[in-house]
């Protein structure tokens, strides 16, 4: 029987994404490059492909006029030598900010390794930004930590520092803000607890209070919204359940009730939607299936139907998976499609953990037991 999951094609597609400066999606997703890389790397890892040799050009090239460029290149070689000597002297004294910036830019214009990129996005407060010189945020801090784990570079991280950054983002009511500007969302509680759990530092925040806030976002249908009173949404269900799982509070959920709401996300064509009455999208393959896995009711849906539908969403020519058949192909949907199939169990795919959204093998590496559920 021919394999319907086009692993090699998806692999080639993802590997080619890292340097596509002139691609519109690549440009508009520059601010979330960290997450984009996480999606690509995790998908490759689940498909059993190598990730150690991946290189990316994270940002647009700095502005340089064509004529000057060539001259500069010659001068720069000389300057490099001089600069290195100077820097050794200046190491213990105040560093010239502009010089540092220029050097950063210079490096940003060449392909760099993933770990290199991750650390370039680290801020002094311990948080990580979506790209170099962007503002730090919980979302990217989580992606950064996940990437470091997958690249076996976890020990290079100052775990206390990052834990402190996250701790400062917790509010009085237990919720977490995404950054210093204060936006609240159940997604951020998930990011915070996931990250801290990976770091082994859950004790720096009030986990019970965080769970309390999550439960405030629960609606009568047992689903969860982004904030209290907001509509139940499969993405928010995933983050809320994930947070509760990490807080050891899954017993607060009526699993039969929620299982019913989640099962009804499956529509006639086999795909899942995120809310009643909406069109299906491949990303919900992950959010609905991982939620069902966390409440151990993954067999409440039609596995064959969803798998077939995900296969239909593949781009058979160039690799990648789209949001729907023949629509919006990108790394984001490729990751969610592959991850969804992995959750159901596929002989050619590595298992992925529904709570941490990391391959099981990587969790085991750092001493965390993957979530146990019936497939």
């Amino acid at each position, binding site marked *: 029987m021919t394999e319907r999951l086009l692993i090699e094609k998806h692999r080639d597609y993802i590997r080619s994404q890292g340097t596509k400066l002139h691609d519109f999606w690549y440009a508009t997703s*520059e601010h979330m490059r960290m997450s984009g890389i996480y999606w690509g790397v995790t998908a490759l890892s689940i498909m059993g492909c190598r990730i150690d040799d991946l290189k990316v050009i994270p940002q647009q090239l700095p502005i340089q006029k064509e004529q000057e460029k060539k001259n500069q290149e010659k001068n720069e070689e000389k300057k490099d030598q001089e600069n290195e000597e100077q820097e050794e002297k200046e190491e213990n004294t105040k560093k010239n900010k502009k010089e540092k910036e220029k050097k950063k830019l210079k490096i940003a214009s060449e392909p760099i390794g993933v770990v290199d990129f991750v650390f370039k996005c680290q801020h002094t407060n311990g948080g990580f930004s979506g790209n170099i010189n962007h503002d730090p945020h919980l979302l990217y801090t989580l992606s950064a930590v996940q990437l470091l784990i997958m690249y076996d570079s976890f020990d290079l991280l100052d775990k206390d520092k990052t834990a402190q950054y996250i701790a400062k983002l917790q509010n009085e009511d237990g919720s977490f803000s995404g950054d210093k500007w204060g936006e609240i969302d159940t997604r951020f509680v998930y990011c915070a607890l996931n990250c801290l759990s990976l770091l082994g530092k859950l004790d720096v925040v009030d986990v019970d209070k965080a769970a309390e806030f999550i439960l405030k976002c629960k609606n*009568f249908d047992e689903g969860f919204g982004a904030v209290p*009173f*907001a509509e139940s949404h499969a993405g928010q269900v995933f983050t809320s359940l994930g947070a509760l799982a990490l807080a050891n509070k899954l017993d607060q959920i009526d699993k039969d009730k929620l299982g019913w709401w989640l099962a009804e996300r499956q529509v006639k064509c086999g795909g899942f939607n995120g809310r009643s009455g909406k069109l299906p999208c491949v990303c919900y393959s992950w959010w609905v299936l991982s939620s069902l896995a966390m409440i151990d009711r993954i067999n409440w849906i039609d596995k064959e139907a969803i798998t077939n539908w995900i296969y239909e969403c593949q781009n058979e020519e160039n690799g990648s998976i789209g949001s729907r058949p023949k629509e919006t192909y990108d790394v984001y949907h490729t990751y969610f499609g592959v991850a969804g199939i992995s959750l159901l169990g596929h002989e050619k795919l590595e298992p992925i953990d529904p709570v941490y959204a990391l391959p099981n093998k990587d969790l085991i590496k750092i001493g965390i037991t993957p979530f146990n559920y019936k497939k």
Partner: protein
Amino acid sequence: MEGERIYTKLQQIFNSGQKIKEFGVIFEHVSVNSEYYPLFFEEGNLGVHYQNILPLLQFSLCLFNQRSTLSEKEILILTKILLLVNPGFVTALNKRRTYLYNGSINPEKELDYLDILLARHPKIQELWIYRFDILEEYFKQNKNQINNINNKNPNNNNNNKKENNNVNSNSNSSSSNNNKEENNNNNNKNNKEINERLEKEFSICSKCADIYPRNYYAWTYRIKLWKHLSDPLSLLLEELNVTMKQFVKKHLSDYSALNYRQFLLKEIETQLKKKKKKKKKKQQDEILDLYFQELLFISHLQTNYPGFESTWQHRKFVLKFIANRQKKTFFKMDLEIRKEWEMILEDQVSDLENENLLKLNQQIRLRLAPIYKIFLDEFNFEESENEQNEQTENSEQTENNEQTENNEQTKNNEQTKNNEKNLQLLNHISLKNCFSFDIEMIYCQMVLLDYEVSNFHQQRSCGGSYKIWLIEFVRNNSYDLNLNTILQSSIKLMKKYDTTHKNLWKNKLKLIENSKKIKKK
């Protein structure tokens, strides 16, 4: 460099201070001779050719990544342009936030700028979050202005803050004191401005919801707006009874609007509790009344369009509340009515040809009409409508087999006599006094009857699912063991027809079997 050229031209337009109403992408090239070439700019409508979007974006990103060399003024323009083509870029938004809070950006103008961004990108969460920050800053600055003016007067009105938020405040001072009058004038002016601003915000949400159904962030934003109204009860009721009813009628599949109605009901309850702290029972009656009105409103929609999942989901919310508040009446069994719907369920479960089902439906209709009428009565539906239907059904029946026809006719005559009796009785009872689980089941059966044969999947997957939810809910709350059997039959029926969710129903049957086993032990 194309990108740089576009950027410079945009910079020119923004710096000129001309009002921009809308920004968009154009697909035809602008004439070389036009003033703003290669941009299109006429009467406030700004357009960039689609082939220039990527170069513009790339140039702006490059410039932004080198922003340490730029001045505040330059960054203001840069972020303004960058966000036009990349509105989800949070770091750029954060820069503007900084300038908003340090006074370099005027909140009202920034709200206008957000109008342009949201018109093109209504689904970007960060824009709505930022908009709320701007709004709060606008209110804050407004209040400070008024407080500064009022503080100059020796007779300081201590209720300033509250009144500034009060949309319904009347000018309350009858005092002849000039200073108080001045204060009030200023407060009223401020109130008027805030009123106008909030009205505008609500209408932006409405517009967004109209054009882009189920816009999660627009609806969440709408909910957050109520935070700025300190005495909102009458407005909440207007939203519930007028604005949101009109909207829902036009957008039946929009569950986000119905979720918003759930918020309104909960919020009204909170506000009522705040107001009259003594008459608790009266409060509770008022709230219950609202929920009954909600039940009737949703029933009215469902009787015309029973195939919308959204209305059935919403019904669960309403029903749960009513059942929990009226436990004695709701869970009390009415044997006569229960017999009716149990019989129908049995007939449905046994395999019927489509033709027979149609016939059966007509019989059921006649039998149940008087009870069903209770729902219709509350809307002042004309009796003639029902009578007409009954007449056409009777005439259709005469076309069938004569033998069974005769029997049926006598049966029908008896039934119509009974119906008239019931009718008279029921005419004097309002839904609130007699509403029970059995009546709700009758309602479901009636509404779903006509659509049993046609459009099966739509009807079954939401109305049928609701019925099962209802039976389960009552079983869990009243320990009626009989309902287990009925629940099983209903689920078996669903499992047969709702193949999309066959595993769901299979597992639900398992749960019932398991719970039976536990009870036996």
